[in-house]
């Protein structure tokens, strides 16, 4: 049995369900954070450290911070903070998250080698330079087309967001 996979897969799915079922914005954002961290752990498991770093720095780091900022600007925390601290389900969740985090830390101390599935991977698999080579050789057209996608998204977002009559 692949316990490492099961541990973080269950964590990701459970946190995902929590994210979409909870009615409060802030716990929902925390659930999303848990999903991102669990996915990063799974990427490490698949011997893709660069993707794991991207996952943590871009999703957990940049996008989630933006989400939390928006939530911070929209809600008034004074009256809600008290009830949230006393909520028993949030406390349980916090405990589970804490356990997961300590598991992750223990694994980190033991060393990454033990968590990687080894199935005759090619030499240098998961190395950043190899990903760069693939990007600019085999997948160069995908790379370019993705930039067109971003351009279209930019035009669409600017048009829809700007005020009338400009």
């Amino acid at each position, binding site marked *: 049995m692949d316990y490492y996979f099961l541990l973080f897969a269950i964590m990701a799915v459970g946190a995902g369900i929590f994210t979409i079922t909870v009615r409060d914005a802030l716990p929902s954002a925390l659930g999303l954070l848990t999903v991102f961290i669990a996915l990063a752990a799974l990427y490490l498991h698949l011997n893709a450290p660069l993707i794991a770093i991207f996952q943590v720095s871009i999703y957990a780091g940049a996008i989630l911070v933006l989400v939390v900022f928006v939530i911070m600007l929209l809600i008034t925390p004074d009256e809600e903070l008290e009830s949230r601290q006393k909520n028993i389900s949030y406390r349980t969740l916090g405990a589970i998250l804490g356990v997961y985090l300590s598991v992750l830390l223990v694994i980190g101390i033991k060393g990454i080698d033990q968590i990687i599935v080894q199935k005759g991977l090619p030499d240098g698999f998961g190395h950043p*330079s*190899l990903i*760069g*080579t693939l990007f*600019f*050789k085999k*997948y*160069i*057209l*995908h790379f370019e*087309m*993705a930039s*067109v*996608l971003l*351009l*279209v*998204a930019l*035009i*669409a977002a*600017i*048009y*829809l967001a700007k005020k*009338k009559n400009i």
Partner: protein
Amino acid sequence: MNEINLSFDFYHLWEVCGGQLILIVAGLLLMIIDMLLLDKDAETRGKYIGWLTVFIFVATLGHMVYRQWDIHDIVFMGVFSADKFSVFISIVMVFSGFLAALMSMGYLRNNALMKGEYYILLIYAVAGAIGLVQSVDLLMMFITLEVMSLAVYALAAFIKESPFSQEGALKYFLLGSFGSAFFLFGVALIYGLTGSVNITSIALAISGGLYQSLPLLVGFAMILVGFFFKMAMVPFHMWTPDVYEGAPSVVTGFMATAVKAAAFGVCIKVLYVSFGPILANSGQPDFASTVSLSALAPYWKPVVWWLALLSMFFGNLIAVSQTNIKRMLAYSSIAHAGYMSLGILAANGDGRMGVLFYLFAYTLMNIGAFGVVYIIDGKERTAQNLEDYRGLGYKYPALGFLMGLFLVAMAGLPPTAGFVAKFYVFYAAIKEGYFLLAALGILTSVIGAYYYLRVIYMMYMKEEIKEVVRGPVAAPTVIALVITALGVLYLGILPEKLANIANVAQQGLSVIF
């Protein structure tokens, strides 16, 4: 260290993806030109940008018809292919974009929406659609699908004052993302099993016996669900009526034709090349093993059979009870997707030829109908109900005639393109032995005739009860309407020429490698 040397043949890139390149570069240039024209008033600016867009579409059309149609080295880097099948569908989509651009000039002026972004998004929507149909790589299909979809989402939300437009676009965005997620999950499963995203490599990889494994079938089903969303087949049609009703009329016409054509094209490509035995027809010994993929047919054929039947029945039945003409045409487009999927189900040369012919004919009649709808509407949502069409046939004889012609064509009566198109797909289905489905399909098209002809009945046999004044008619719209009307009649009387071209095009499907 691996050094990066790009073995990039720019001439070959231009040959294979010239159409996309023209559109992408033109979109960038138009953004700059739009800025340069800032000191002009909105009317002149819209006129300049509009005619430039029309010119760009004509140039792309020329490139595709005269250059891309007969090149020999058709696959570029294993990502894009310019086989005749893809080029034919691309031509349909560029043509649809061309007609939409012509009509948009009048539409945007009537609604005081003269914005450069509209044309830029239209150009990128067509560029994405061409990329989608030309790609032979599932990952590229996803990226280009998103390019096309994002541009169309924004176009659907283009009337910012209208809550209907916003609501429809948001629904389209959410459900469209859902469909794309299905597609992406399917691609991930297939990639995990075969180690490749190229559709011919996938065909080779799974023909060895992998086609019986459950994960592959799940991935296959998920990819198809993603396409069915875009094709608006029942039960994946929930977004269609709201989006088609809320979006600007010309955009609705464009969506119902170009986006549908792209989805049908790419679905046929993936279904037959990756999961069907068509590559074995190419005569190459390497691909002889793909014959075994015909074992997949018992899995997808019953699904398409039921989807075709449900689309035809639900589309036509619900359209009968609609009072808004755009909503009625939305349900009718679901029904048309059902008719077209008969050609997919037949899985023979005639069926594919029928689908290609149908897509071209449907482009002509549908964009034409929406052109008339927008002129009668004046400003969006002033006269869209069926009651508003009472007596219009005598008040505006030309518009009444055109609307009648397009609706008769959609109902599938001779001598119009709609009749011939329906004939080809039903013929293909009957040839493969789907008698029951063909009979039921013809029955549903009788239901369809009722609501199409009801509009004509309203226009010519009822007294006007509400004063409806049509909007001003712009010269480019007249050009577009004349082209579509002549096309509908020409294809109805002399369909052989296009049918032969479509037949050559569908044969190009077996040489993608």
